[in-house]
């Protein structure tokens, strides 16, 4: 098992050096970016079981603010990253605080409403580029502007951020917060009766998730140098995170990464084969996949794997002991 992990890590590290075709290097970077945002969503959607369908609001904040600072005030976009995180944390509180004391549906509805609200406002706000969007530095001599011609530096930056995120997630998973979040997902009423501070922990999960999602959005802005209401705040941004996490397995550490590795190349392939119409078909398929996952294997591929490889256990009680 440890050797497998080592091999996998080396594979990820060596990937762009082995597949030197710029197309594959770029694809690799996109896979990692998708894995980052899906893993971030996973913290609140997977571990805590609170389904956000408007995570694009955090991603969009992360993408817009650095480019805003650059385009309007000629400041280094990097300064926008912590600002975007702060904004995202604020949004998380606005959405989560009232809804986390209510049934789960309210939270989901609220995320959709707020994300859409923000998208409409941004689409009509000249300062934020309205429908056209914002642009970052095209080519810059400064390293902190993070404009690279090759995808390779981005690949490694993304890999580092993913590693950080997975480490944080792993640490959380093993901690009191992690156990309690899983309990909240499994049964909120029972969790409350055991003293779990449900509302507070849900907020922690959402804020952690929002911060990393914002970071993912910033990374996207650095790489593409551009954002508009659709690419930054559209519903498909939220959908992408959900399907990637759900396919791989929500509430697992590597599920989102697994989902990204499968889905992103697939999406790139269908886009290439079907051309412009490919995008439309892709989302029909995405919708279908989400329905199938929900209907047959909500735990995703990780759960499927677990079910196929778990030892056969009988449902009858274990040998009796004197109580």
């Amino acid at each position, binding site marked *: 098992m440890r050797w497998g992990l080592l091999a996998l890590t080396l594979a990820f590290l060596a990937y762009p050096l082995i597949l030197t075709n710029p197309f594959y290097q770029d694809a690799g970077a996109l896979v990692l970016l998708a894995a980052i945002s899906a893993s971030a969503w996973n913290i609140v*959607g997977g571990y805590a*079981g609170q*389904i956000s*369908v408007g995570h694009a609001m955090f991603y969009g904040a992360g993408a817009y603010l650095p480019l805003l600072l650059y385009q309007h005030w000629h400041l280094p976009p990097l300064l926008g990253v912590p600002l975007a995180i702060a904004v995202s944390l604020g949004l998380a509180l*606005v*959405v989560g*605080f*009232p*809804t986390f004391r*209510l*049934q*789960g*549906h*309210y939270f*989901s*509805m*609220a995320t*959709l*409403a*707020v994300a*859409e*609200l923000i998208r*409409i*406002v941004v689409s*009509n706000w000249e300062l934020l580029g309205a429908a056209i969007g914002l642009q970052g530095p095209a080519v810059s001599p400064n390293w902190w502007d993070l404009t690279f011609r090759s995808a390779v530096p981005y690949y490694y930056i993304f890999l580092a951020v993913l590693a950080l995120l997975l480490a944080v997630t792993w640490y959380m998973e093993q901690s009191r917060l992690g156990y309690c979040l899983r309990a909240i*997902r499994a049964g909120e009423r029972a969790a409350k009766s055991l003293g779990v501070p449900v509302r507070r922990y849900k907020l922690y999960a959402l804020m952690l998730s929002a911060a990393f999602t914002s970071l993912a959005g910033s990374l996207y802005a650095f790489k593409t140098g551009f954002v508009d209401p659709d690419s930054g705040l559209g*519903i498909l941004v939220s*959908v992408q995170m*959900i399907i990637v996490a*759900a396919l791989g397995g*929500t509430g697992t550490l590597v599920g989102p990464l697994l989902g990204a590795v499968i889905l992103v190349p697939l999406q790139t392939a269908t886009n290439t084969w079907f051309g412009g*119409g490919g995008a*439309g*078909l892709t*989302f*029909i398929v*995405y*919708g*279908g*996949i*989400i*329905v*199938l*996952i*929900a*209907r047959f294997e*909500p735990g995703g591929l990780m759960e499927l794997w677990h079910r196929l490889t778990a030892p056969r256990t009988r449902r009858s009680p274990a040998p009796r002991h004197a109580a």
Partner: protein
Amino acid sequence: MILLQVIVGGLLLGAVYALLSSGLTLIWGMMNFINFAHGEFVMIGMYVAFVIVVALGVGPSIFGLAAAIGLFILGVAIYFALIRAVMRGPILAQILSTFGLALLLRYTAFWIFSPNFVTLPQSSLTGTINLGGILLNVAQLVAGVVAAALTLALHLLLTRTAVGSQLLAVAADRQAAMLMGIRPDRMQALAWGLSAASAGIAGALMAISYPFSPAVGETFALTAFVVVTLGGFGSVPGALLAGLLVGLIQALSAYYFGPVYKDVIVYGLFVALLWLRPQGLLGTA
């Protein structure tokens, strides 16, 4: 005078919102389930109207009926194919199921029809009518009145008929209803059919007056969410009241702040509602 016109127009559209949302609140009250694809039912109702009018050239009563029947069947089919199974599973699956369904329906519509906005060809309901100095669009007037009537009809169905009391029994206590010989499964399927049908008719009614595209589903879903939250969990009369209110607020917002922000204000009010009074107008804390 213009303001009065705006107000009446808003109330008329609000009645349609009420009809559109009554199905959603029925399902929520019965099964504690929010259908994220509800907006797509409305959208499909609009396109059913479109297809029928283009193919057969018939009037609103026909395509309204077609939308109702078609969506009823779709609603029941979705219940048996998907909903019944995910109800037994985790909440994640429940929310994802209709969310995925929404995407599936929306992008299939994008693929079949183009992303462009379309309108129905001229129907018999054209022109304006002068009611006491207020100029009203005939189509919008008919839509609003019909929608209000249908919403009330739904309420009466639930509260005054045998079938309705069976539906409400299942909503109140599944176990007890089963003990009384009611089949919850059948009732829930019926509820889904009614829910989809009412959304479809609302869509057909709106299609007469407004242009539409496959993208509108999301906006209607959000509008419905606001209406059912404002009106209170499971309450059809609440949905009627809330629908009228939301229509009114939207019309006034468009009048004072321009059409771009009319939805934004409604969504913003939704967030405020969640902060201050999530049980809605008629609910108890």
